[in-house]
């Protein structure tokens, strides 16, 4: 992604920032993701990309990569060890379209 695609208007940015600030929203996202997504005025393709865990499309729509990385942690895990590694591995695999060149630890 390059900054020319960055679109600060995406509602997905608000979703991620709200989850950073609200532990209850994070729990609800885990429990009932659709209900949380319903409350954000996303473009249909933006919502589809989140549901499909398709970060490449999400970034092409203009998602800020730092908040994209944090979204991957809300989905796959956030702890300093295993969870974050799984999150960043899956994020990078989605962005590059394959799982090569991803370290084990």
């Amino acid at each position, binding site marked *: *992604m*390059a*900054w020319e695609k*960055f679109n*600060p*208007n995406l509602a997905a*940015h*608000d979703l991620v*920032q709200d*989850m*950073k*600030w609200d*532990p209850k929203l*994070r729990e609800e996202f885990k429990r009932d993701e659709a209900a949380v997504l319903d409350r954000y005025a996303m473009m249909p393709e933006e919502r589809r990309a989140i549901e499909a865990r398709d970060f490449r499309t999400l970034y092409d729509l203009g998602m*800020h*990569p*730092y*908040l*994209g*990385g*944090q979204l*991957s*942690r809300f989905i796959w895990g*956030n*702890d*300093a*060890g295993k*969870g*974050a590694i799984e999150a*960043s591995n899956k*994020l*990078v695999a989605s*962005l*590059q379209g394959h799982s090569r*060149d*991803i*370290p084990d*630890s």
Partner: protein
Amino acid sequence: MGQIVFAAAAPHAPAIVGLFDRAPPDSQKVVKETYAAITRELLAARPDVLIVFANDHLANSRITLYPDFLIGTAARHSGPHEWFQEWIGCRDYSAKGNPAVAKALFQGMTRRGIRMSTRDENLKFDDNISVPVVLTDLDRTDITLVPVLQNCTVPPFPGPEKCYEVGIALRDFIERDLPQDMRVGLFGSGGLSHEPGGVKYYKIDEAFDRAFLDLCVRNDHKALLKDITVDRLEAAGIGGTAEVLSWFPVMAAIGERPGRSFGYTGWPSFRCGVGGVIWDLDTRQ
């Protein structure tokens, strides 16, 4: 007039705390020696206040209304922020703030044509402030903290020239506005090359990092402003490498004094190049 008695800069990658035990010995050595030297020299300099320039990671303001420089004016600065605790895996801390210096900085920079913002509440700190505070045990000293959270990631963010201009104004503020004999430390927190959340999440631009560290050690301002452009920063890692812009106010404020580095590591699982600099304030080139 106030006096700058300490100046340093180093990365704050959370993995240098959270994944430290898993890192190879050479990489551990760089982290350990860099922050040990910073801690030792910070304590020896006995500053009354440490002003830390560190980028905000979209933790304190909406992306649609994003300040370029946000000064924390709280009486205490506690962290890490709730969501970040699990991520960083470091201890809690509560460092003494310095509302008087923080507010004077806001007023002083405004007078000098530099737009900053303030917030009285405890800012939400992630690795930006937490890593340097915990690795130096700043909260266990009498040194007060003034955090300045900088926009290095939401375009258009202040580039090298603007950050340099901030440093020139900062020096004038310290010399003219702060009380007689106040001892001031400066710290730039951020970098080196990394691309958090990007396709190059695991890629580190070692050539950039080593060249940047070399420029900082030489502290040749003309070369720094010529070689370190926003395009070069973004080529070395979008949305992350530009954190080194938090080093620029520090380097500009102290003038062209040489520094010392304590090694470099580009271990991929740190997801960030790591190396720091302490500048020698009693030597002018």
